[in-house]
């Protein structure tokens, strides 16, 4: 019996970890491509959550329609906000610090805009699927299985885009050497814009899947951002596959840790793991030593 519970927790850890992976991979994509540490990444998660809430609850769209529309909407919103803010800082003197300050400011502005527009009440979205899967005494709600499937699908699509498409090649080339990319005809500014939009969209996918479990409110981005940071530090800052592995690992370690202690320790466990990694392997568990 205890073993079953233990296994259930590990599976739960993987499921939550797949969401951490989505959030971390957005941060990693932006950092890896444009060397910008996006402190407003959590706010795109928050806005994505509101998008889903309004479409699915207020307007009553079915989830399979509401979620893609919300994700695409967040993609364009991300590009719009990038174009209006950090676009002007990139490449200018001191841009590495000015972009951190700008995204911090952006995060505060977006939180307060959400508070003003959507109010302070916590919103939630009903479960997309009811019922439970039961195999050999292990019980997994279909809702959580759906989370995992969507996360894997999204990661698969992103990997395909990065590896096999013209856009993906351009993103990877720009990330590795911006000048060399420009020389072969890749417009860095446009790549930065699209990358930022993609990262925001990844946040929105996570928000859509977690909306039935965690309430949406103007401040829901911050804890997500912190999780995302732990993930990218585990995986090696700027590495997309590292963020995926880091996310899954964090989910499982948290789940096991909570089993051994109690749920108040969840964040402590995550951050302790992060500090240990910074101590022993500052380039990340899956990153390469610079």
């Amino acid at each position: 019996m205890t073993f079953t519970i233990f296994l259930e927790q590990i599976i739960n850890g993987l499921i939550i970890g797949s969401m951490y992976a989505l959030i971390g991979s957005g941060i990693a994509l932006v950092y890896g491509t444009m060397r910008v540490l996006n402190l407003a990444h959590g706010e795109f998660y928050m806005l994505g959550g509101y998008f889903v809430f309004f479409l699915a609850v207020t307007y009553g769209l079915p989830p399979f329609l509401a979620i893609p529309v919300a994700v695409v909407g967040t993609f364009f919103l991300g590009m719009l906000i990038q174009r209006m803010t950090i676009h002007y800082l990139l490449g200018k003197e001191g841009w590495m610090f000015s972009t951190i300050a700008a995204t911090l400011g952006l995060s505060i502005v977006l939180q307060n805009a959400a508070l003003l527009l959507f109010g302070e009440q916590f919103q939630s979205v009903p479960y997309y699927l009811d019922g439970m899967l039961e195999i050999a005494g292990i019980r997994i709600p279909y809702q959580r299985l759906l989370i995992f499937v969507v996360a894997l699908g999204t990661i698969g699509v992103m990997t395909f885009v990065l590896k096999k498409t013209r856009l993906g090649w351009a993103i990877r080339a720009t990330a590795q050497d911006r000048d060399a990319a420009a020389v072969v005809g890749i417009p860095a500014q446009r790549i930065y814009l699209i990358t930022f939009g993609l990262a925001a969209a990844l946040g929105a996918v996570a928000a859509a899947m977690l909306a039935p479990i965690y309430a949406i409110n103007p401040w829901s981005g911050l804890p997500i951002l912190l999780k995302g940071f732990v993930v990218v530090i585990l995986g090696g800052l700027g590495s997309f596959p590292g963020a995926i592995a880091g996310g899954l690992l964090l989910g499982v370690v948290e789940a096991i840790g909570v089993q051994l202690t109690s749920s108040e320790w969840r964040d402590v466990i995550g951050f302790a793991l992060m500090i240990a990694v910074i101590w022993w392997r500052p380039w990340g568990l899956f990153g390469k030593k610079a």
Partner: protein
Amino acid sequence: MSEPLLTVENLNVLYGDYQVLWDVSMQARAGEIVAVLGPNGSGKSTVLKAIMGLAPAKSGRIMFEGRDITRVPTHEMVALGISMVLERRRLFSAMTVRENVLLGAYHRSAGKEAKSRLEWVEDLFPILAERRDQIAGRMSGGEQQMVAIARSLMSKPRLLLMDEPYLGLSPRIVKQIAGIIQRINQDGVAVIFNEQNVQLSFGLSNHGYLLEGGRVVLSGTGQEMIGSDVIRRVYLGV
């Protein structure tokens, strides 16, 4: 005489407050090899970067095939027919050899011909086909330079800029690269390259420029320049 392919007129380039190029003027004709010579810090790299749009011109004019390209952004140069091999290769080091080479044809203007160009560069550098799946960053310096040159040729340029193509390479590889530059040139591509070594520079070129402290102090044919007193003064301090 035919219209020059590239004309640089009174080019001034500053990095911050520091002026690197002072009223630099030079020319390259179609099918020519031009050497830009100069000691360290003379600004010879900056000339090439300015032509490619990687170093912004403060004043002056750069004309290519009768068109003012002074303010054209770098990523549009390949579409006009200019390509560049950057200093120290600058490959996409985590990507494979094949990916690096194909990225040379990234621009839509080159996309259609990518396949036939790939065959052409693989014929020029057989090693590209042999090592197509190797990660570029793990190759030797000379092999990387071949990948970098192949990448730059994928867009079918009429003008190729090569920033220190011999830097850090063994004499044997240098000879090989020099042969390749000649072969590229025989295919009708004009080449402008820079180099510190006098013999290396003028052995290959039709025409050369000597830079000192960011100014052109001498220009002429290779033979004229090798015998020049100015060369002796700049290099030997006599």
